[in-house]
């Protein structure tokens, strides 16, 4: 009812993107995972167990909310897919519950995860608490500081949070450290990867577990408006909420628009706009677009949103861009923060800064999007209040 795996060829190749560029020590583990997932995706017991959790625990289906006062700034009817109302406050739980169940089926008593904004870490810690699995979350040092509330949430849920000081202290460094842990503990441990990137089978598993966003929204918006949306917008870091929102619309005549983090502006060099300035290469297990220098060294990224502060993007997005099925637009910190405040003041919804990039994309593109616009509101903004308070000077006299 909520688990809608796509039909695939099982190779993990998205055109020329994807693959399994991992150390040999991990090949056995990702092969084991691919086999386990292949079995689970067709297994009624797995679907029933996951669907029950998604309904009774996560609270699915999430609502679709029309936002007419916000829509005045867009010039179209705008509907928000309310993943912020999913338990734990973001779409991340859809994936975490599915993979945690998978870990149990594989007999892995321990789960590790990386997290940027902390939403995936919180979702993973939540799923592990629910299912009685040991949980360790790696988080870049900079991110533990700007998302301190989520560190506390993970810890109260019983997870160990490891702050990663290496590199830029952000998501990519957390992923590196999680891979290092996995190489050493692969027998007992499932790596619960949070985004639709990494080596096969992760891009497929995460996409399948997030497809519920688009499947629900597609039906809800047709019921509400009698038509398919003219455009679907979602923010893109690694791209899990976006691929989940886009995928069920691939065969429709609907524009699919990913909004990536342009930080201080693409022209400043301080950004995380992978498609705007990236080149094809190999990082974190797959071939995709990455922000890298001439030597193939990963470039340090910047975004006010920790969840989009990543130099790469999932391989299926790279494929959708190359074939022209999806478009990707850069949105700056300032544009995202303005959209965050706009939605809060016009609709009484405080969005995550990540999701605010998608809202800002809609405001920026405006009426050219068509009559009916769907925006995936991937998460809520409570975790970002510290950043917002500083940005808008909300605290004090």
């Amino acid at each position, binding site marked *: 009812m909520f688990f809608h795996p796509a039909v695939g060829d099982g190779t993990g190749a998205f055109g020329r993107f994807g693959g399994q560029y991992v*150390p*040999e020590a991990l090949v056995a*583990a990702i092969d084991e995972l691919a086999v386990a997932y292949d079995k689970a995706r067709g297994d009624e017991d797995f679907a029933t167990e996951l669907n029950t959790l998604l309904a009774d625990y996560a609270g699915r289906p999430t609502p679709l909310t029309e936002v007419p006062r916000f829509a005045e700034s867009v010039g179209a009817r705008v509907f928000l897919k309310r993943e912020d109302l999913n338990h734990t406050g973001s779409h991340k739980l859809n994936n975490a519950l599915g993979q945690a169940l998978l870990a149990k089926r594989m007999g892995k008593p321990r789960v590790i995860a990386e997290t940027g904004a902390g939403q995936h870490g919180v979702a993973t810690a939540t799923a592990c608490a629910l299912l009685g699995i040991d949980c360790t979350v790696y988080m870049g040092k900079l991110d533990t500081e700007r998302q301190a509330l989520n560190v506390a949430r993970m810890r109260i849920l019983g997870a160990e949070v490891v702050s990663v000081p290496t590199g830029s202290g952000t998501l990519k460094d957390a992923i590196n450290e999680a891979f*290092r842990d996995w190489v050493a503990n692969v027998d007992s441990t499932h790596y619960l990867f949070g985004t639709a990137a990494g080596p096969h089978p992760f891009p497929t598993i995460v996409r399948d577990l997030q497809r519920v966003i688009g499947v629900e929204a597609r039906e809800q918006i047709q019921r509400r408006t009698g038509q398919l949306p003219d455009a679907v917008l979602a923010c893109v870091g690694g791209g899990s909420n976006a691929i989940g929102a886009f995928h069920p619309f691939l065969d429709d005549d609907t524009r699919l628009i990913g909004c990536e983090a342009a930080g201080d502006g693409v022209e400043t060099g301080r950004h995380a706009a992978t498609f705007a300035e990236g*080149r094809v290469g190999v990082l974190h297990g797959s071939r995709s677009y990455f922000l890298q220098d001439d030597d193939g060294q990963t470039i340090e990224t910047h975004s006010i949103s920790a969840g989009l502060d990543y130099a790469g993007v999932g391989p299926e997005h790279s494929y959708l861009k190359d074939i022209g099925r999806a478009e990707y637009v850069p949105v700056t910190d300032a544009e995202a923060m303005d959209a965050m405040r706009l939605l809060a003041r016009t609709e009484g919804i405080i969005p995550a800064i990540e999701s605010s990039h998608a809202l800002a994309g809609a405001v920026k593109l405006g009426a050219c999007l068509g009559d009916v616009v769907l925006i995936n509101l991937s998460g809520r903004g409570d975790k970002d209040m510290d950043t917002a308070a500083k940005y808008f000077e909300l605290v004090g006299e």
Partner: protein
Amino acid sequence: MSSFSGFSRTEKTLVGYLPAGFPTVDGAVRTLTAMAESGCGALEIGLPYTDPVMDGPAIQTAATKALENGTRTEDVLRTVERVAAATGVPIFVMTYWNPIEQYGIDRFAQRLSDAGGAGCVLPDLPVQHSLPWREVADKHDLAGVFVAAPSSTDKRVAEIARASTGFVYAASTMGVTGMRSEVSGQDLVARIRAATELPVFVGLGVSNGRQAAEVASFADGVIVGSAIVRRMLDAPDVDTGIAEIRTLCAELADGTRRLVGSP
């Protein structure tokens, strides 16, 4: 052009690792030269990379320093050239895959061959993605060394052995680079030997002469990285670091060439 014609399986080889550009480009050239002079029969020169997922803290720190010093891929190739000219031992570049791809696979192989390099060790290029490398490596007469892990199935061990040239790298343990109190790998070496005539070298975890001797009792070569890097990281200056590394390499070489049980 490389003069490398393969390792002996009768003589044991000590392979020492250091990232290019660490502690500086010149410092690395001097250190690598000293390593060859004090017993390393082959050298692995690391290409410093921003996201070294197979490396533990020592090599991560060294690679970061090298990058902060501005070390580029060109510097790595020039380091190979200088060390090859100075030492004459076979030199392998140990590198993650993306820097080769961005430099241009064919261009990299051409330059490495011109520099006198023997080949590459490719820790994050699994055999199923290795064809582009193997094609150009053949053309430029370079070796390609792939890593087998304790978790590799026999079928994969056979594929890795078939894809490798020069030697097969057996990871002694499941984990990243770094010093360990116990070193194993005997089972994996036996499985690799069943699949190939190539020499089998064991890496990961070896830090002293005793461990080198243990490993050399069942493998054709011993690869040491983190312990060497750690000496330099802990040294107050480059010259002291080089002196420490000379002593360590002599001890490791002695261990590598001594059979366990003999005095």
